[in-house]
């Protein structure tokens, strides 16, 4: 059980160490600004892309162009500098920006251009297209809910990727494998899996399973909260989002 607390420092207590990416988009330091945009784009590009596809019924090529152009414009014009946490959640603000952007682009069709603050983030549009195949048609008045759900999905996906990278780099491959098997198996069988079965499957004791999963869960929680912290502008917004999206109360 000694390997149980070697990650993540002082357990999963908050506060997180990373600055808000939203705040950092206004930084004078170019690298800091680029890092901030990178984080925001990684978290939001899929919800943006899918919303463009579904709400405006765009082809995948047009949606790709609009998504890339949207984030480019955001960086060029410093849209996020205008965000006021007292007025709305960041997600709502971003969605409003998107709606205005698409509407303007439609009025001036074909005006899309790229350039500016140049952040290179590989966006897997083919993967996003595949995911859209799992999506039921979304009613116009349900777009907001859809955008929010997609954002949570994106947040969790990024967190899982980070969890895997962190655990594996710390020699805790088994911890991630167990977490993957226990919490991420969508085959419909995983609901039946209990610790005894996992212990048998992996040749471990139930106690080891308990501890390994506890560590993975704790790290996952920490990573999700850190990312959420990074993607919100203020402590207040962070607490509110943690409560609303994850049901977690932050001290």
């Amino acid at each position: 059980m000694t390997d149980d607390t070697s990650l993540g420092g002082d357990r999963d207590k908050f506060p997180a160490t990373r600055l808000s990416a939203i705040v950092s988009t206004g930084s004078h330091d170019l690298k800091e600004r680029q890092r901030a945009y990178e984080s925001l784009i990684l978290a939001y590009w899929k919800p943006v892309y899918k919303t463009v596809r579904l709400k405006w019924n765009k082809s995948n090529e047009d949606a790709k162009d609009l998504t890339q152009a949207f984030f480019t414009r955001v960086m060029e014009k410093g849209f996020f500098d205008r965000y006021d946490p007292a007025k709305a959640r960041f997600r709502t603000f971003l969605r409003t920006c998107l709606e205005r952007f698409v509407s303007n682009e439609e009025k001036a069709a074909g005006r899309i251009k790229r350039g500016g603050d140049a952040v290179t983030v590989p966006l897997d549009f083919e993967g996003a297209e595949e995911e859209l195949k799992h999506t039921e048609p979304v009613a116009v008045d349900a777009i907001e809910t859809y955008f929010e759900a997609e954002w949570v999905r994106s947040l969790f996906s990024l967190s899982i990727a980070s969890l895997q990278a962190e655990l594996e780099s710390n020699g805790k491959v088994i911890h991630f494998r167990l977490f993957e098997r226990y919490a991420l198996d969508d085959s419909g069988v995983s609901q039946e899996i209990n610790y005894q079965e996992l212990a048998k499957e992996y040749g471990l004791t139930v106690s080891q399973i308990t501890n390994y999963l506890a560590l993975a869960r704790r790290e996952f929680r920490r990573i999700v909260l850190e990312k959420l912290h990074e993607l919100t502008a203020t402590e207040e917004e962070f607490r509110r989002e943690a409560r609303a999206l994850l049901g977690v109360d932050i001290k």
Partner: protein
Amino acid sequence: MKWLSDRIVQRLREEIDLPDLSATKYRLIQKLDSGGMGAVYLAADGDLGRRVALKVMNAAPSAELAQRMLREARIVARLEHPAIVPIHDVGQLPDGRVFYAMKYVQGRRLDRVVRNKNPLPELLRIFQRVCEAVAFAHAHGVIHRDLKPENIMVGPFGEVLVMDWGIAKVLLEPSKAEPIFQVSTATANTIEQQSLLSSLGERQLDSVAETALGTVMGTPPYMAPEQALGETNELDERTDVYALGAILYFLLCGRPPLETLELTQVGQTFADQTRQALRQAYSKIPRSIEAVCLKAMARDRNHRYVNVDALASDVGRFLDNLPVSAYREGLSERAERWLARNHFLVFLIAAYLLMRIFLLLVSGR
């Protein structure tokens, strides 16, 4: 990056919320229930090899409040009564949340029993047993502070168990309490000096947590006005009397006296409104039991029953068709109650009189 289905996203939300028990002797088995203040999990006690119910509070309290809660819970854990589900253990998780390990009880929650529309006398007898357990705790200087149908279990043989004593308050007059356990003077004084904080439902937690009185716990629909206002020093047995009145209201109406979780609404429902609500819900509610409910739920605690025994006694009198202290009957009501109470005697007299009339008529021919 792997695509996550809605089911997996939901699963991950639950994973995030799961308590980290790795530093404890408990092993998580499954989530049982969740409420405004926390969630209950089924867990295995690794040392003793038994199953326990773990209640994990939603929010991590301040270090000072956590210490107070732990200390008080340890005292409450010593209450021994067949209708009180004991706390086996208390502790704090790595993320600061406080947890309580309780006996794992299988049965039905009172709110679910009420949904099955059991007869009123049966529900009132359950209520009496709840009162007995609460009165026992009061006799030992402990008030529950979170009595509600969801915290009462009814077992398969009709046994009643009052659960969730995690936020109970130890009253400040140990000399009056029956000595069921040894509390050192130092401990008792410490407790006496503390104004243990009352608490709120989840929606108000943030705002009140920063007031001088600190975090408040409880469930607004069943919370006495003084508790909702955070008047910690005003809490006594009558705070629980109010909650019991609200439970009685639930038994009569099938819903709580207050549908909102807003603390500001607590105490804003006046007797007339409550009476009206009771009559709308169930027009046949006898006036006397309605009066018992209203008296227990009086806004001013000085107008409530002085203790739970007095409340239970009135409920018992109602069940026995005797007059209750909370209601002055009219002549017709008295007669009606007398008839109900002596219906067999009335039947015999009526039968006798009819027989005499019949005989008179026959002999007169």
